[in-house]
């Protein structure tokens, strides 16, 4: 009986007994820092086991690779904390990257980035309006824009890839500052900005509130529709920025740039500890998860693991990470049911 009670008091969100107040909130700690801890652990293991992993050039390469998914994942973190998501980021990325490369060719670096970011913002506005005003479920709305934008990109490009290798433009994808790759520096900047918005502005608070409970948010006076539209715009803006960086990295962009990109982005955010149902999550987790995925791909490449097997490994890691939470919840449920049944079984029949 005593053993059962200790288990019961560990269940999160159990009716307050006062004892939980002084305990360390392992849940919260794991949610905030879990992915970072796992990432560093993998670095240590990879560094010891794979000699070619632990050198500066390789680190630079891993960090650079993490940025292209990462910048978009910063935006997606907003969406998933708000309890929604955006499937159109893959199509958006291709269109924005193509726009950036094409504009860079004729007008220079700054207009190129503005074009990419603005295109992303407009697509986000469409998504947001469809979800918040027309009230189409996010899955359907963003699936629709995914096809629409993808088709539009093929029409605009005629299926051709745009190419441009002007120095000032490709600098953004390939150069280093203070021995860090430029895209990674931009990614870190985005993540810091995102964290500041999430934690220090009322917009950020509204996002957490809506993700936690839409109805309670509405009753509390949160502008639910406006916030939702803004969230999708934010996703679009960051995706546009990430797309421009990728275009600069590759000297080129066209339709079908990175198949399955949207799922990589969502997987990154979820692996970073952000709850798919909304209401919980952090930028640090997203950064750590982006680096973790890039590290994984890098280590597997260095170990000459077949590309198809790599996808199996990535899927496996994702399932493993997500089942930790599910298994813990099931255990908690089981113990609370056990505990609830005790008085009944001890009753005389």
């Amino acid at each position, binding site marked *: 009986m005593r053993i059962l009670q200790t288990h019961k008091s560990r269940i999160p969100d159990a*009716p307050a007994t006062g004892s939980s107040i002084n305990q360390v909130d392992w849940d919260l700690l794991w949610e905030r820092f879990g992915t970072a801890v796992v990432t560093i652990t993998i670095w240590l293991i990879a560094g010891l086991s794979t000699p070619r992993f632990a050198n500066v050039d390789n680190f630079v390469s891993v960090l650079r690779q993490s940025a292209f998914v990462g910048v978009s994942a910063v935006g997606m973190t907003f969406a998933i904390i708000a309890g929604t998501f955006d499937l159109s980021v893959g199509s958006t990325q291709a269109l924005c990257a193509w726009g950036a490369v094409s504009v860079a060719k004729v007008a220079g670096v700054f207009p190129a980035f503005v074009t990419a970011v603005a295109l992303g913002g407009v697509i986000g506005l469409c998504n947001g309006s469809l979800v918040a005003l027309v009230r189409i479920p996010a899955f359907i709305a963003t699936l629709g824009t995914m096809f629409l934008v993808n088709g539009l990109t093929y029409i605009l490009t005629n299926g051709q890839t745009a190419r441009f290798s002007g120095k000032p433009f490709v600098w953004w994808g390939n150069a280093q500052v203070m021995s860090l790759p430029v895209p990674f520096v931009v990614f870190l900047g985005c993540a810091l900005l995102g964290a500041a918005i999430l934690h*220090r502005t009322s917009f950020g*608070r509204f996002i*957490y*509130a809506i993700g936690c409970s839409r109805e309670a*948010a509405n009753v*509390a006076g949160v*502008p639910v529709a406006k916030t939702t539209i803004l969230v999708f715009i934010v996703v679009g803006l960051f995706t546009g920025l990430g797309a421009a960086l990728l275009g600069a990295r590759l000297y080129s962009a066209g339709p079908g740039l990175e198949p399955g990109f949207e799922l990589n982005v969502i997987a990154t955010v979820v692996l970073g500890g952000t709850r798919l149902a909304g209401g919980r999550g952090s930028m640090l987790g997203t950064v750590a998860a982006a680096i973790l995925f890039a590290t994984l791909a890098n280590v597997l490449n260095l170990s000459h693991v077949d590309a198809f097997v790599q996808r199996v490994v990535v899927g496996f890691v994702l399932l493993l990470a997500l089942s930790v939470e599910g298994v813990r919840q099931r255990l908690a449920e089981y113990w609370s049911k056990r505990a609830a049944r005790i008085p*009944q079984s001890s*009753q005389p029949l």
Partner: protein
Amino acid sequence: MDEIQRVPILAVQNLSRRFPGVLALDNVSFDILAGEVHALVGENGAGKSTLIGILAGVYQPSAGQVLLDQKPALFPDPLSSQRAGISVIFQEFSLLPHLSVAENVFISREPRRGLTVDWATMNRQTQEILRTLNVEIDPATLVSELAVGQQQLVEIARALSAKTRIIVMDEPTAALNEREAVRLLEIVRSLAAGGVSVLYVSHRLEEVFSIADRITVLRDGRHIVTEGRSAITEQRVVSAMVGRELVHSTRPSRTAGAIVLETKDVTVDGGLVRNVSFSLRRGEVLGLAGLMGSGCSELMEGLYGLREITAGSFLIEDRPVRIANPRSAILTGVGLVPEDRKRQSVFPDLSVAHNLTIGNLPRWFRAFPGLLDLAGERRKTLDYKRQLNIRFTRPEQRISGLSGGNQQKVILARALAGNCRLLLLAEPTRGIDVGAKAEIYALIDRLVQKGIAVILQTSELPELIRLADRCIVFVAGEPRGELCGAEITQEAVMSLATGLSHRVTVDSASLRSIQ
């Protein structure tokens, strides 16, 4: 009726059920005879729902037992209760709206021909059952196309098709209009005549007295009385229902100030609530009372912008206002403590501080960079912690770790942080233990003394008497009468609300009809 030949088909013996902090059922025993209509009455919180839950297999008893055919029976889950021949028709129907009547009646028990559903047989059998109920509904109709009253008949048909011997009906007429209600009562009578036992749970004494063979009254989880209909008067049932000890502290005398809110002929959502006119002064508590479905909650939601006010005028401090949504309510100086804490007010994953300030974030803005002043927010949260005596350790702590009473205090602080002039309290102490309740009453007294005007919607009569200076009683969406000060007694309110007003000896001058 020959009672001697009839045997109890179902009996509960010394049944108790404890929830954290509450003894919802306390040693209750009574029985139901074969072919009997047995009415179960009691106020909200008397333990009726818990008892129904145990019979339905939703809750397990903490002590005592249920006897079926005089043998102990256990219902660890809803399926085992159904297999034992008990059908529970809850207030909220469990029909699937997008399926046909026949599919709903035979759900999960569809007659089969090989691997496929035998539609012809299913429709024919449904038709037969509906005919025994004297109902003309095409079995192929979608449930969503039926009126509420017809949907209830489908629920009953489902119960009959499952060879049910005991039907439990929870407030079956709450959602019905008068004609549908009369029809339902006829059907209940004919079911009983056909040998089915009915446990009829209702607030409405008129109905209860028109169909019940015996009446059982619960109060505060305890069994008060079980009597044959002819052996008990309506007066005795009412006093058995409400005769609990009153809450000890009493309402302080208050002096009302200037008029804060005035409504004239307000209609909510095109007729859910109609013809509401009242005025409310600073430092006054106006109570709204009524049974479930009487329109009190809808009126509260209308005042806060969660429902549309479709007609009538609404003045705050003599200025006409339009409250389109909660945001504009807060800006106009109206605060709400919502009825359903879990669904409408608490963000379980967010911290105490975030829960407290979410309604008024602009107040925590720093002037220049547009960033939240986290230190100021923390100070403010600790401020409210002291003022309202909220028990938590850190403002950053998750609110789900707090007790219900302390969560409710945080929600109250959220409403107060908006500097409201008018505070709407919907069931402010629902699911809160006795100690915290008394604290919240004292808090409300203090706020009112400071000049806030309060509208209180509550289904707990002692709470109404303890807090309200005046009280409007609603029946079916319309105000039925207004009571003032000492006129607010449990008997007077219940009589108005259950429609027994003409039988009750309340001084007629004290019943001011509103219309």
